[in-house]
């Protein structure tokens, strides 16, 4: 019997340019880049030198705070460059891909003979542990604290997000092995959507499957935790994206690190939205070659338009990137008298526009404009309509702005991650940067509690 959690609050934004379920394979790029910034909360320490040869699975950098957490190279070849930014911050480690790929052999393991500590150690050795995130703070986790539970959400329901079922095709076994391995560490909860029918999801073994039936952000792991097993101060829950589960499964199945993944290329400015078979660290230029309709006034996003960040052709696929989207930048658009004109092509949840008349099937082509000036919080109840959590969002945001840590704890800051506030930031008429506010609040809190 599968549990069903019904969610009413939320909002589905129907954007133009969804990826069609067709997988395109691109050849291994000549150079890859592993970007530490993709792993939230990790301060990297590079452990290779320019000119070193690495195999797939060799560490490129480690987490400075926990040097046992390594980050594996997705390819074998020669380290060409360690790109640094201001104050020598490591931006990217580039590796030139060798013609023949050599793998570090971590050995095929018999899962039934492993316990939780063994699984942890294997993940640490193979440089995959850093892919595991945690609540509180929504950062890359560390091996010192034992998780109370592990949450995996196979439901990606943000606008233009990739469908995990497409990636799952052909990886069913690895996914199941990954789940079984994780279940040695703590109880694993797998969250899926009502429309996901792949039996590897609905009948996954060693986990508790829950269907989250509701509009976006039902797929957010934070929302799922809030409804299934609310987190309290002092606890740690691991949150793992389903692609990482496949990586983990492959490690135990083959004894090798294999970071190949499927990434959706989508958005209104993409010629042929589709899914691409590629690898962590592949450059966007390889992914988007010939795909963008025009190069001026477009925005390339590493991720989906709600939680992804502004990027460019020279960026690389990050450890958690599941889609790359391209939308119009909009900086060349001049709309007159926006405060009164009907603006039919714009999407709004407010009835002062006509989105409600045009039906749910209409696809919108939204650009990156903020479409208004930033104000203090004026309207009430806007956030709560799109945040299906037992959280008073306005009060939490105010407590974060005020820097009142006691109040933040009381209002449940440990239960949230910035992505939970993405829709609230979208609908906010005061145009406040909510995700940034939450991220800054979490960072401050982490420092205070350290």
């Amino acid at each position, binding site marked *: 019997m599968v549990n069903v959690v019904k969610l009413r609050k939320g909002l589905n*934004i129907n954007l133009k340019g969804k990826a069609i379920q067709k997988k395109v394979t691109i050849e291994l790029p000549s150079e890859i880049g592993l970007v530490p910034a993709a792993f939230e909360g990790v301060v990297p320490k590079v452990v290779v030198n320019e000119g070193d040869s690495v195999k797939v699975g060799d560490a490129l950098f480690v987490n400075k705070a926990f040097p046992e957490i390594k980050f594996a190279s997705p390819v074998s070849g020669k380290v060409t460059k360690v790109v640094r930014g201001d104050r020598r911050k490591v931006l990217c480690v580039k590796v030139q891909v060798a013609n023949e790929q050599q793998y570090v052999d971590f050995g095929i393991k018999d899962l039934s003979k492993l316990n939780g500590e063994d699984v942890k150690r294997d993940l640490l050795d193979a440089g995959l542990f850093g892919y595991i995130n945690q609540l509180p703070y929504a950062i890359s986790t560390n091996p010192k604290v034992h998780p109370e539970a592990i949450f995996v959400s196979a439901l990606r329901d943000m606008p233009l997000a990739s469908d995990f079922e497409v990636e799952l095709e052909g990886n069913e076994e690895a996914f199941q092995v990954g789940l079984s391995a994780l279940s040695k560490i703590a109880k694993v909860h797998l969250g899926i959507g009502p429309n996901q029918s792949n039996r590897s999801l609905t009948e996954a073994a060693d986990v508790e499957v829950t269907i989250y039936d509701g509009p976006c952000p039902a797929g957010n792991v934070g929302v799922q935790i809030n409804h299934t097993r*609310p987190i*309290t*101060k002092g606890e740690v829950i691991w949150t793992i994206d389903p692609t990482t589960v496949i990586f983990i499964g492959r490690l135990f199945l083959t004894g090798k690190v294999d970071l190949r993944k499927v990434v959706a290329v989508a958005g209104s400015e993409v010629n042929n939205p589709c899914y691409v078979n590629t690898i962590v660290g592949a450059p966007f230029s390889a992914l988007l070659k010939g795909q963008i309709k025009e190069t001026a006034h477009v*925005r390339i*996003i590493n991720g989906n338009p*709600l*939680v992804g*960040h*502004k990027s460019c052709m020279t960026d690389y696929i990050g450890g958690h990137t599941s889609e790359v989207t391209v*939308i119009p*930048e*909009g*900086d*060349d*658009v*001049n*709309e*007159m*008298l*926006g*405060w*009164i004109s009907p603006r039919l092509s714009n*999407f*709004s*949840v*407010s*009835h*002062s*526009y006509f989105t409600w008349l045009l039906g749910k099937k209409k696809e919108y082509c*939204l*650009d*990156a*404009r*903020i*479409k*208004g*000036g930033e*104000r*203090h*919080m*004026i*309207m*009430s*109840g806007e956030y*709560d309509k799109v945040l299906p959590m*037992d959280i008073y969002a*306005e*009060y939490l945001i105010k407590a974060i702005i005020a820097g009142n840590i006691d109040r933040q704890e*009381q*209002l*449940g800051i440990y239960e949230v991650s*910035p992505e939970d506030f*993405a829709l609230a*930031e979208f*609908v906010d*008429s005061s*145009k406040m940067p*909510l995700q*940034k506010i939450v991220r800054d609040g979490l960072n401050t809190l982490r420092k205070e509690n350290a």
Partner: protein
Amino acid sequence: MNLRNYLNKIKPNFQEGGKLHAFESIFDGFETFLYVPNRTSTSGVNIHDAIDSKRIMSMVVIALLPAMLFGMYNVGYQNYLAAGTLATASLFEVFLFGFLAVLPKILVSYIVGLGIEFAWAQWKHEEIQEGYLVSGIIIPLIIPVTTPLWMLALACAFAVIFCKEIFGGTGMNIFNVAVGARMFLFFSYSSKMTGDAVWVAQESILGLGNNLPDGFTMATPLSQIGQGILPNTSIYNMVTGLIPGSIGETSVIAIGIGAFILLWTGIASWKTMSSVFFGGVVMALIFKTLGMTPIAWYEHLILGGFCFGAVFMATDPVTSARTETGKYIYGFMIGAMAIIVRVMNPGYPEGMMLAIFFGNMFAPLIDYCVVNQNVSRRVNRLKK
């Protein structure tokens, strides 16, 4: 597009180092009024909803227009009625007189209030906030037509500075700006705000209207009740609004149209609005049962400023309760309090203004209690 090019051309003058830098906020205000700003996001979500506070405030102003237009007509109507020349005047004449009587008040309110707003925004290097667009039209509608313009100007200045700007602007204020202006006038110049002599325009304007004799008085139905007289107004006139009273608050129908716009666009909370009415009904029924008020419960709702306050002022999202449960309590409190002041306080024939003022004062406390339930649920979970 030519206008856009022109704006782009003159823009550098207003930016840092330009010779007109002192007017940057004003330029920005007009530019964003003409064109949706095309600044794009740098952090957080890459796409945004088309709604912004300009649109919201414009919708509220539109919702206020029926009450304003009817108020203008009623100002003329009351003058012609008092002079006994209503039968010979055309509808247009009556409206035009009222229009000319009310327009200076709206202009004064906007010029004074927005002037301060612009100057303040420039001083603080902020964008101009749109909140006063709404307050600036509500204030002239909730005062008697005979209020001198200088009093209005003083009240607007007081309200903008002491009810809003010192708290940090729209979104940070505790008290509704329009209520602040009305309170200032009420307590500073009470003879001009209440009594029998203030509700009908007394002088003709540009040859329109009638000069009424000195010492002409006309009581509102509520002040008649206050004096122990049963009002002789028909229900029909109370609903359409053809009774003496503050400029914009007499017509239930015009306010009803505004309420529909506000509720449909979702800008005003139906929870707040309906619970104000509910609170009013409950309290009026109690007083009627106790024999303390001579009129029926529904007459309490359609007389005076009850409807206007419930629709346009109690629902101000900034100063009302922000939690969904809190909105019910807040609304009920205002409705009940308005009737209590009306019936039990011999000094004030109308209680809506004071009720909203008290409501504003209690809203943070109400919210605090509601939010703390959520907090204690979390604390209990920790204890388990």
